């Protein structure tokens, strides 16, 4: 335990020499059984705190109290959420604590890491709801509720509900508990964003009972095979003027 943490910059010649020595030493060494394997110098190893709640590849925790899926979500969106947890605009104590010590540059790398993970979606448990409620959910997602000025969910999240790069998340593959919790958080302002933000408006225009309906319907859909957010260029409809998205996710 004499080596200390900081990486000091060494002159290049020394580095080359050192690397050479280490290689020859490694070749010469006989396998040692009691030596612990070196700790992998990877992001995967660095983020074990995250994956202990979000699944080893960010596929989401099977129990609905655990962390939601991160794998394959747009990187800008993930980074924006991490920034919100840091600023307290999105409230969830364990998340706020775990990102507290991280720099913007490191958070960006972590967000990109999870965005890149490609893991199959698993079938989620859906609470038993009546067919009528399911129909109401489908109606809202595909057509909205013009009487309350609730736009259709797919008008922003994409016709296939898979979201767009770099900031718009998809809404499939999320558990019933997670979706309904988020809709409640927007209504209680524990998940807020800058300006007149999109989901704050949408969630507050919905009827309370509609939360149950959309959450159940969305959680009941099987995500398309190989689901990915669509490229930004695929968006045909512009976002409504009142829908202002955060900006820390896009600009480096």
């Amino acid at each position, binding site marked *: *335990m*004499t*080596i*200390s*943490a*900081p*990486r000091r910059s060494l002159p290049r010649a020394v580095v080359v020499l050192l690397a050479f020595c280490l290689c020859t030493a490694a070749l010469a060494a006989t396998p040692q059984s009691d030596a*612990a394997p070196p*700790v992998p110098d990877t*992001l995967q*190893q*660095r*983020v*074990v*705190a*995250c994956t*202990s*709640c979000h699944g080893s590849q960010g596929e989401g925790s099977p129990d609905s*109290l*655990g962390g939601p899926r991160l794998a394959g979500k747009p990187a800008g969106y993930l980074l924006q959420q991490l920034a919100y947890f*840091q*600023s*307290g*605009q999105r*409230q969830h*104590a*364990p998340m*706020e*604590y*775990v990102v*507290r*010590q*991280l*720099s913007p*540059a*490191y958070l960006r*790398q972590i967000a990109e890491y999870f965005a890149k993970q490609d893991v199959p979606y698993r079938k989620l448990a859906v609470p038993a709801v009546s067919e009528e409620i399911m129909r109401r959910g489908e109606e809202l997602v595909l057509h909205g509720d013009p009487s309350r000025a609730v736009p259709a969910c797919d008008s922003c999240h994409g016709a296939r509900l898979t979201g767009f790069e770099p900031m718009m998340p998809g809404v499939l593959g999320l558990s019933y508990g997670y979706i309904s919790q988020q809709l409640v958080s927007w209504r209680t302002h524990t998940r807020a964003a800058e300006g007149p933000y999109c989901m704050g408006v949408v969630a507050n225009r919905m009827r309370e009972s509609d939360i149950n309906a959309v959450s159940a319907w969305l959680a009941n859909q099987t995500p398309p095979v190989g689901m990915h957010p669509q490229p930004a260029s695929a968006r045909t409809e512009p976002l409504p003027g009142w829908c202002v998205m955060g900006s820390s996710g896009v600009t480096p």
Partner: protein
Amino acid sequence: MNSLRRWWWVLAMLAVVVAVWLALRPAGRLPASPGQRDADAAALKDLALIKRGAYLATIGDCAACHTARGGQPYAGGRLLATPFGDVPAPNITPDPATGIGQWRFDEFWRALHRGEGRQGEPLYPVFSYTSFTKVTRADALAIFAYLNSLRPVNQPDLPSGLDFPYNVRSGLVAWRALYFKPGVFKPDPAKTAEWNRGAYLVQGLGHCNECHTERDSLGGIKKDQHLSGGQIPALDWYAPDLSTQAGGGLAGWRAQDIVDLLKTGQSARGAAFGPMADVVRLSTQHLTDADLQAVATYLQSLPPRAAAAPAAPFARAASAEQGGKLYAQHCADCHGMDGNGVAAVYPPLNGNTSVTEPSGINAIRSVLLGGFAPATAGYPMPYSMPPFARQLSEAEIAALVTYIRQSWSNQADAVQPDEVRLYRHTPAD
């Protein structure tokens, strides 16, 4: 019954004395001489002074308290938790209406040095003037110049959340008589310049003692216990004793270990976490190498501590076997069966003061919360530890923490499941 009545009398008399004193004392606004105004104005334009002030404000970690989470730097609004209630930190940007834009340097100096507000009112000691009083006038002027160079932010201060009777400022008069003596740091001519610089930084701007010392029930720092460790009120972490000599909390730490920890958040002896991770990230990682070395030199001169006589010969707790199994299953992959960790990646637990500190809080909360060491310029991508709050029961965490406190060279007291329950909540800020 009788004695109770006598107490009321004493209290009433005291109240009268304080009231009379408050009415008669020569308090209030400081008169401004024209010469002083000119001096202030000149200082505020001096770019070199402003730059030095920025560095000093970083050492003082002023922004940590005077910035709300997600808010504008130095614009205040953060609630500082104390055992007596929350105190909001004020706006110290140069906004004339809501910040310190109208302050003269004399008034700023009086706040820092004597803990008195602009109207001469005593300030709550959550503003660490008990330490800042040691700051020299020249350094205070640099900080004042720096604060005045910031962009003014118009943000009114929040109302105080102190509970009665702590919200009555006159109560502070008694507190200050007990615990506060104004006085700039006096260099010790018998010591080296480096030692004196370290002592000045640690005792003054660095205000290390505000956390690393035990406080009594009135929130005062006990005399003659400087840097000897204590539980941080309202934050529920233990700030260890900082002596590196025999019996000290950092016994065996080399100067380099101290420098490494403060500069990078990592050292061969342990990593910074909890409130210390904040301090490293926001403040100490930005110190010059010379200043870090000075701090280390000073800490290395703190005296050895008398080891508390053990009540009974050391014996491992009955839960040792359960604790050992849990350790092998959940911790050994990273921290090693030998408890020595992995250099520059995972901190050692063997001989780690955060594991063996008297209260056991730090180890309990680290296991509950997991998390990252601070990301710093010297160590930008720290590794992390999973939180075990949801995975393990309180009894299991107690057995596990007891195991690491009593294994290898560690010989600390066992912790109980009740204590784990006590600290289960997660702090957000």
